[in-house]
């Protein structure tokens, strides 16, 4: 249970949140027409006769969009309805050429499922919560109005008209901005693993309607408001926070919450009323008579299931079983591209824990610094495996490995080649190390005396001096061992 509470004048308030996420289905063609769906195309260049609702045009379901919705449902272990049906949602607007949206109100294709979230990446198992998903249905997107093209007229771009969306409806199981954010991120992660939505919120591929209500702990559910079309995780979290606060203020001032549709203004970080319940459309839903019920056979379902990849939770569990720390396992599995990269690295035969350490610190650090994503990583899994191999066999120390990695990032060369070209090989030559240590001790006789007098902390100083004198190429383990012997000789006496 979330301990998120809003402190009001009359006491503590809980917030209850449900999300309706609209996720654009990854498909080359629209839900009911053959028109293309590429983002950013010139206005009205991806419009078929069906999308423009020309007289006599009929919708025909695109199998790929149906398949993606089913795979998504399977990924959240939801009930897949082998019989579902499309309904028309009727309303007039200039971005809706048919005068109705084809959706699924009464019989959605996917029933109840669940998504597990964790509130603390460092401790994912202990801070987990299961969020119910009520349903997933597929529906058409609308077009887009453009108000800035003409002084007195609005233009409409129908490129998006008819594009397939999945509406993923959560149960009102979310109880804080953090939970809401975690749910949305996890959902996005699953969609991207499955490949059913690119999850790109900036391009509008994912948008959320945020249902928020507040109540005193233990009370019945309060009246909710719905804030429409919020297009980033941060904004969704802000909506929960601001809207809950606003509702508490209204209620504590003796007011009532109106069931209404609201909009979020990111510039002012507040929600604004858009449409009250009284103005709400009567959508006159009814089964679309142009479309037969959608009946899925077992072979189709089996194909959908067989095509599912390993999903984030399963992957994280597998990583943890390999000895990878939970935090690192979480980080490595959050994004499908990173997980794919890391799986390739594991496939090259590296030690999992060391590889996870190196990937999450060295590689992710370097990518962050250079502003790249892992798909454009300058270092391939094979190259990383080579580098990790050189560390494991003692050829490179940690610090040498860092140097080699930096060169690899710059040049794109393999680790062995860098070691060879730059002479960065680590030395474990005990004789050479002993000679250097003897020099260091001779030059710092006072510190040797202090150490022997009990200042143990000076040990690090001697390690540093030795490594410095050897240009960082000494094997740290050998240095430690030899130093301990050399410094300890007189102490023992």
């Amino acid at each position, binding site marked *: 249970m979330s301990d998120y509470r809003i402190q009001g004048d009359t006491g503590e308030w809980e917030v209850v949140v449900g999300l309706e996420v609209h996720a654009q289905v990854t498909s080359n063609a629209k839900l009911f027409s053959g028109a293309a769906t590429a983002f950013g195309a010139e206005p009205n260049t991806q419009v078929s*006769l069906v999308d423009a609702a020309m*007289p*006599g045009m009929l919708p025909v379901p695109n199998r790929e969009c149906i398949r993606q919705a089913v795979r998504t449902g399977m990924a959240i272990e939801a009930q897949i309805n082998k019989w579902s049906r499309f309904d028309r949602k009727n309303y*007039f607007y200039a971005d809706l*050429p048919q*005068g109705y949206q084809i959706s699924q109100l009464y019989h959605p294709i996917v029933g109840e499922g669940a998504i597990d979230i964790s509130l603390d990446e460092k401790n994912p198992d202990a801070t987990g919560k299961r969020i119910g998903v009520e349903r997933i249905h597929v529906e058409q997107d609308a077009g887009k109005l453009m108000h800035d093209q003409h002084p007195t007229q609005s233009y409409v771009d129908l490129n998006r008209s008819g594009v397939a969306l999945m509406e993923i409806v959560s149960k009102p199981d979310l109880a804080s901005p953090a939970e809401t954010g975690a749910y949305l991120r996890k959902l996005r992660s699953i969609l991207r693993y499955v490949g059913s939505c690119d999850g790109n919120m900036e391009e509008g591929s994912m948008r959320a309607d945020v249902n928020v209500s507040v109540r005193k702990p233990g009370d019945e559910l309060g009246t909710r408001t719905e804030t429409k079309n919020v297009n980033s995780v941060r904004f969704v979290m802000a909506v929960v926070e601001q809207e809950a606060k606003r509702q508490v203020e209204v209620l504590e001032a003796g007011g009532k919450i109106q069931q209404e549709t609201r909009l979020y203004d990111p510039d002012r970080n507040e929600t604004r009323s858009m449409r009250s319940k009284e103005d709400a459309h009567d959508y006159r839903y009814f089964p679309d*008579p*142009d*479309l037969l019920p959608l009946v899925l056979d077992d072979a189709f379902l089996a194909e959908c299931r067989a095509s599912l990849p390993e999903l984030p939770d399963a992957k994280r569990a597998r990583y943890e079983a390999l000895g990878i720390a939970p935090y690192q396992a979480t980080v490595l599995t959050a994004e499908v591209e990173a997980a794919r990269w890391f799986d390739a690295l594991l496939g090259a035969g590296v030690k999992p824990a060391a590889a996870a350490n190196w990937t999450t610190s060295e590689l992710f650090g370097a990518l962050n610094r250079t502003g790249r994503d892992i798909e454009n990583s300058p270092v391939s899994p094979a190259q990383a495996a080579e580098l990790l191999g050189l560390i494991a066999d003692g050829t490179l120390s940690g610090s040498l490995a860092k140097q080699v990695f930096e060169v690899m990032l710059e040049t794109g060369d393999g680790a062995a080649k860098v070691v060879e070209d730059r002479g960065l090989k680590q030395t474990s030559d005990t004789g050479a190390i002993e000679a250097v240590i003897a020099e260091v001790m001779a030059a710092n006789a006072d510190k040797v005396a202090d150490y022997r007098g009990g200042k143990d902390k000076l040990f690090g100083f001697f390690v540093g001096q030795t490594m410095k004198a050897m240009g960082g190429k000494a094997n740290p383990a050998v240095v430690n061992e030899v130093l301990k012997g050399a410094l300890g000789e007189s102490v023992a006496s």
Partner: protein
Amino acid sequence: MTDLTDIGIAGIRDGVRDGSFKAREVADAFIVKVSQAKALNAFLVETPEHAIAAATAADTAREAGETLKPLAGVPIGMKDLFCTKGVTTTAASHILEGFTPTYESTVSQNLWDAGAGMLGKLNMDQFAMGSSNETSAFGNVISPWKRNDGGNASLAPGGSSGGSSSAVAARLCPGATGTDTGGSIRQPAAFTGISGIKPTYGRCSRWGTIAFASSLDQAGPMARDVRDCAILLEAMAGFDAKDGTSLQLDVPKWEAGLSGNLNGLRVGIPKEYRVDGMPEEIESLWQQGIAWMKDAGATIVEVSLPHTKYALPAYYIIAPAEASSNLARYDGVRYGIRDLPTGAGLQDMYAATRADGFGPEVKRRIMIGTYVLSAGFYDAYYTQAQKVRTLIARDFERAWEMCDVLLTPTAPSAAFALGEKSADPIAMYLNDVFTVPSSLAGLPAMSVPGGLDKQGLPLGLQIIGKPLDEQGVLNAGLAIEQRAGFTARPEAWW
């Protein structure tokens, strides 16, 4: 010399094939007839160039020794509900005035692919809503028939395919396309003494046909006899991947399968089709039809379709509900007329465009449909009507345990005079009482002329068949045709 406009589709096809005459001669003969029949107002657009091009293609193919297409040399009329590429298509509504599709409906394309030519676009009830053609925005079609009472009343050609029925009956074209949602092929066929068949729902693609009520709309042919209907239907029907409700089945060879021998056939007579106030003449024609069926070798069984009386109310909920949604796209934004009052916003534009563009009957049905789908009324009307629809379909399924086809009158009256019923929508709706149940059940059904009433007006008999059994329907129709010897035709006054 034979009048080429008198010989029907099979005759034209065979004559062009065997070189008795040229397709061009046929086209020219009909083009002249069409141009001389303006008084019937059957054609909204005349397309002689289309008919001539098809005829020329047929003649050229014959001269080259090629195998002629099934409808080579046959010019037809096209109901204006079918979108025709480059030819204005309005569904007889002002709201689509000036709309010229850039695409060809599947049914019309199938006909052109079979070699047919188009004489023009046929007038109809606006958006196929009506039973008399009086709802056309471009003036009603007038039936070529007159009562023999010495009066000169203009009669309704039936509806909604009234341009089709009038044109075929007046020999302006040997056949025409129709569409049937609740009787729009069969009732006008009956009113004008021609034949027409509505096939099983899904036989003909709805793609490119302007929608009235999607779950009911079905295209079909109207022609002078059963054989011509079979020939046309073979060309019109067929699976179309662009229509999700299209049946993925091969088109049977209906013409080749025609036989008026009904030995072993069980003909059901539904007792619920005896309605109050039905003219005696219709009852006696029905009895005559039963006798003809027996004569053709059939056995007669009385059957019951107990939910028949609920069919009309259910139909007038379901069809308007679908129409209210289907017609939402006529909003003045992309095609057709646009009324944009000064200073108007989007909602004002919708209101002005639709108020101006739709006729009163279309508005009435949009209002009914909007009402029955609205919150709080949906279950009481729409859901209930769907349940009734299921029960009606079940009535038929039970009847098929006892019989193979059903025989009924097509309409409860002969053609009425224009204006006679237009003030009373319910009286008008009652005209569909015999045709609506089979529409709700998606069954094939046809009307064939049975005889004339005392006023000299044609009356039709309806045959309803099992799903996909167009052959059984056509054959029963043929048996009646062979025995009725219906040769009456309207005298030209136009």
